[in-house]
Each structure stands twice: as structure tokens, then as C-alpha cells.
């Protein structure tokens, strides 16, 4: 593996990990709202959350550019408040990946939350546990399989994200060029097939690793959560 390739792989992992980790809590919150609360715009919220899946990634990329670019309203805000710049940075790649992965995170978590037995939460409350404690000791552990499924889907998507990323942060080697972008670039040139294939294999290995890890974690959770032979 060349040094450039190693850098690309590292960057990809970093971007995908950051995207998943940051999107996860937010996705959980949204999933919780959708699973547990009744409000008027519920269907609408679910639809909005699903949008990045429906729109062509290029459109989402443009949207991100308009909102989070250095000139965009949110971009300026983030810059001013957190000193965080997205445009043409790996952070932007993570943002794009996170946005695109978001719907994939929300759905399984919502599904799991809907399946949690409310009776157990009630039981916890009768034992004196405050809401947040009930959440941490009962709801969250019981929703773990969904969280895990969402995280795997989201991570995989973040790893593979291409359209929105290239539109939002461009393809800057060493800064925003993730595996996907690199593979794409290579495939665009008549002579890039072999190099592209190498990176594709790397991608596959990364995904395999993530999936196997999640399967293993899933078994742990199930052993813990079920106990039925």
C-alpha cells in the first residue's frame, strides 16, 4: 500500500467514524421523538429526516454548500460560535456523510425504541428512577440492538458517501479525499482500474471489519438482553 493510500484510508475511517459518532446522539433524539411522542408534524419530521435518501446526492451537496459553506448562514454561525469550518475540510466531509447517513441511523433506532416494553419503564419508575435514569438503565439498553444496527448502516453509508461529499467539500487529496472519492477519481481515468480495484478491496475489508465487529457486539447484547435459550 502506498503512503497516499494509507492516508486515504485513515481519512476515510476518521470521517466515517466522526460522522457516525456525532450523528448518533442526534439520530437517537429524533428517533425517540418519532417513537414516543405524538405531535402534529410527526410524519413531516420523519419525511424530512428521510430526505437525504431521496434527493440526488448532488442536490444535497449543493444544499449543504448553501447552508454550511463559508458564506452560508449556518456555516457562518458555526464558525462564529464553535470556530468550526466545514467547507473543504474533513469536517465538511464528515458533515456530508453524517447528513446522508442520518436516515439510516434514525429508522432502526426508532424501530427498537417502539419495541421496548413500556411496562418495564413503568416498573422502573415505580422503583423511584427518574426519567433520565429510566432511559439510561432500561430504555437505552433495550434499544441497543437498534442502535447497533443503525450505527452499522450509518457507518457503512458514511464510508461510502460520495455524491454529497464531492459536491460539498470537493475532492482535495489529503484533506477531503475519502476512499469513495479516490475510487471514483481512479475510475474516471481509462488507466485507473487496477488502482481503483485495490481501494475497492480496502473498502470491502473496512466494511467487513465493521460488520463483523457489530455482529460480535450484537451477540453480546443479545446474550445479555434475552437469556432465553
Amino acid at each position: 500500500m502506498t503512503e497516499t493510500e494509507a492516508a486515504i484510508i485513515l481519512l476515510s475511517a476518521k470521517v466515517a467514524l466522526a460522522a457516525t459518532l456525532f450523528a448518533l446522539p442526534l439520530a437517537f433524539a429524533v428517533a425517540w421523538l418519532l417513537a414516543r411522542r405524538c405531535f402534529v408534524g410527526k410524519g413531516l419530521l420523519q419525511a424530512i429526516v428521510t430526505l437525504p435518501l431521496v434527493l440526488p446526492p448532488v442536490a444535497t451537496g449543493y444544499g449543504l454548500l448553501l447552508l454550511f459553506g463559508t458564506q452560508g448562514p449556518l456555516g457562518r454561525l458555526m464558525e462564529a460560535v464553535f470556530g468550526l469550518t466545514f467547507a473543504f475540510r474533513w469536517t465538511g466531509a464528515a458533515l456530508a456523510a453524517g447528513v446522508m447517513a442520518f436516515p439510516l441511523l434514525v429508522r432502526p433506532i426508532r424501530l427498537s425504541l417502539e419495541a421496548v416494553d413500556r411496562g418495564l419503564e413503568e416498573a422502573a419508575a415505580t422503583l423511584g428512577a427518574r426519567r433520565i435514569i429510566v432511559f439510561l438503565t432500561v430504555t437505552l439498553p433495550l434499544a441497543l440492538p437498534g442502535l447497533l444496527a443503525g450505527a452499522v448502516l450509518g457507518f457503512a453509508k458514511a464510508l461510502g458517501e460520495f455524491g454529497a461529499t464531492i459536491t460539498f467539500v470537493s475532492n482535495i487529496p489529503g484533506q477531503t479525499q475519502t476512499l469513495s472519492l479516490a475510487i471514483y477519481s481512479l475510475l474516471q481515468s481509462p488507466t485507473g482500474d487496477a488502482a481503483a480495484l485495490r481501494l475497492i478491496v480496502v473498502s470491502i475489508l473496512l466494511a467487513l471489519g465493521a460488520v463483523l465487529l457489530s455482529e460480535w457486539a450484537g451477540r453480546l447484547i443479545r446474550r445479555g438482553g434475552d437469556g432465553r435459550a
Partner: protein
Amino acid sequence: MGGLEVDIAGKAGSFAVSARFTAAPGVTALFGRSGAGKSTILKMIAGTARPDEGRIVSDGRVLFDAAAGIDLPVRARGIGFVFQEDRLFPHLSVRRNLTYARWAGRRAVGRPLPEVVALLGLEDHLDRLPGTLSGGERQRVAIGRALLADPRILLMDEPLSSLDRQRRAEILPYLEAVANETCIPVLYVSHETEEVARLADKVVAVEAGRVRAVGSPAEILGGEEGGETAVLLEGRVTGVDPHYETATVDIGGATVELSAPGLPMGARVRLRVRASDVAIATRPHEGLSIRNQLSCTIERVTVKGSAAEILLALGEKRLVSRITAKSAEALGLAVGQRVVALVKAVSVERARLMRPDEAVE
């Protein structure tokens, strides 16, 4: 002295419930047929279901008041709830289930864990997950979890239904002791008249979502259809025979001897005498193993099919004897007649040792 006042009306789906009763410290049984609304009432007291109207006050604290808009959250009501379905946390070990109120609920450490674990026979299962426990084991964990929650009100929905007689015989006195020591109201749902008679100070009879009657176990269980007729007599121990382990109880106007090891002199007890255990003789007899021969007056004779129920006045107290209608006729029993009630000492159940401060009803 704090008790629980309940006066609520509400719905569970399409089923309307309204209930009004008070529960003093000690055991109050909710008694009623399947589907009568017992669990629903408990849920409303716990706060996991919401009444439409009314008030619930515990020990002076208003838990719920529809008019005043008060609806204390479940966690703040200070309850311990044994649900009808066990509702154990499937992802937590038995130990963590039992101690949940301590590490998650921040309830005070009351009863010691090893004591409760030993009582419930859960020593071998502490590190297992609930998933593979047997039905009775699950139920025991649920009981332990509620007991260890240091509750100010204990709500128990058929807590012993899937336990064997021996285990019940171990747990019942403990529950009795919990109710007495901690001076908290215990609301107890059960179908076992025996259990109710043993434990309860008061019975709330629930029928079709409403309280049909509230009264002493004697009053309510006596008339229970399908149940056995029995009377509860309260009195004071006036004599103890340590050798034969019998006690003599003065029930006011008469004394009853019963087989009861360990009853202290002067203690106040409630005795349960089943109607089918009372025979009638027209005069006292010698040479009988039946030592309680109580002179009574017949107050009423009710023939129910092949059986006759004879209400007997024994001073202030009442006894009921159930004999065959054939016997009643053969003996020519009639109202006003003086007869002798025969009660075997071993048939008298000491239903409950009462607290010193408890009023004799």
C-alpha cells in the same frame, strides 16, 4: 398515623372504574373476580394509569387531585409495586433487578438484601438473567424487588399466585411483619380467601369496576359466593398450656381452645372458624375429642340446597355452622333453641396476630 385515601373514577380503555376507600397501615385486600378492575385500581394509585377524577392521598401527601391539577409522577409516589405480570428487567441480573430501587431509584436502603434473598430462596439465582428463571422464581424476584424499594405504599397484584404452599407459608408471615413493622399500607390483590383472611385487616370487594363493599375480612369473605362460609372472631389469649401447646382465647362471653404453639399470654388474635367445621349438638357430650363445646342460641336457619347454615349467637359474637339439611331436620333445630356448638380445636385457624394498637372491630 398515615394511611391511603383513594377516591377516584376513570377508565381503562372502555372499562369504567370508580373506587372509594381508605387503607390504613396494614394489609388491605382488593378482592374480586377476574376482570373486576383490581389491577386497574392499583395502576391508578401507582400513577401508571390516570384517573379522570378524584383524589389519592397517601399519608397526607396528595398523590393525585384532578380538581387541583396535581398528578405526582410515578417515581415520586414512593410505591413498591408487584405487577401481575412480573415485569422484570430482562437485561439485568437477578441481583440488579432486586436492588434496582437502590442503584437507579435512589431509594433508601431499608431491608437487608441477604434477608430478602434468603426469604425468597433466590441465593442460587442472583447472577442469572431473568430470561430462564422458572415462573415462580420470576414472581419471587418481583416480590423482592418491591420489598427492597423501601416503599411507603406497597401494591401487590397476586404476588403469590404461582408459588407452592410451603414457599407461601414462608413469605406470608414476612409480608405480615413488613406491614406491621414499617406501618405502611399494603394493597393486596388475591383470590385466595385463606391468604386474605390471614393477612388482611380490611377487604375492599371490587365488582365490575366499582367497590361493592368495604369491611372486615369476616364481613366480606363470609358472604363471598363460591367461597366457604367462615367467621372471624377476635379475642385475647387468656390461657396458655405450654405442654400441649394449646391456648385459650377469650372471645367475649366464651372461651375457645385452639392448637397454637407460641401464642403469648395476653396477645390479641383473630380466629377463623369455618362454618363446615362447626357441628351442633342438642346438649353437651362427654367422651368427645371435640373440646370446644360452646352454648349458643340459634338465631337463624337458612337452608341452601342440601345444606343448612345455622347462625348461632354466642354472647355478642356470632358463629355459623354448616350441616346437612337432613341433620338440621333430624335434630329439629329451630330459631331460639339453645344448642351446643362443637368446634374442634385443630380446626380453629389463628388467622392473624394483631398489633396492640389495632382496634377490635
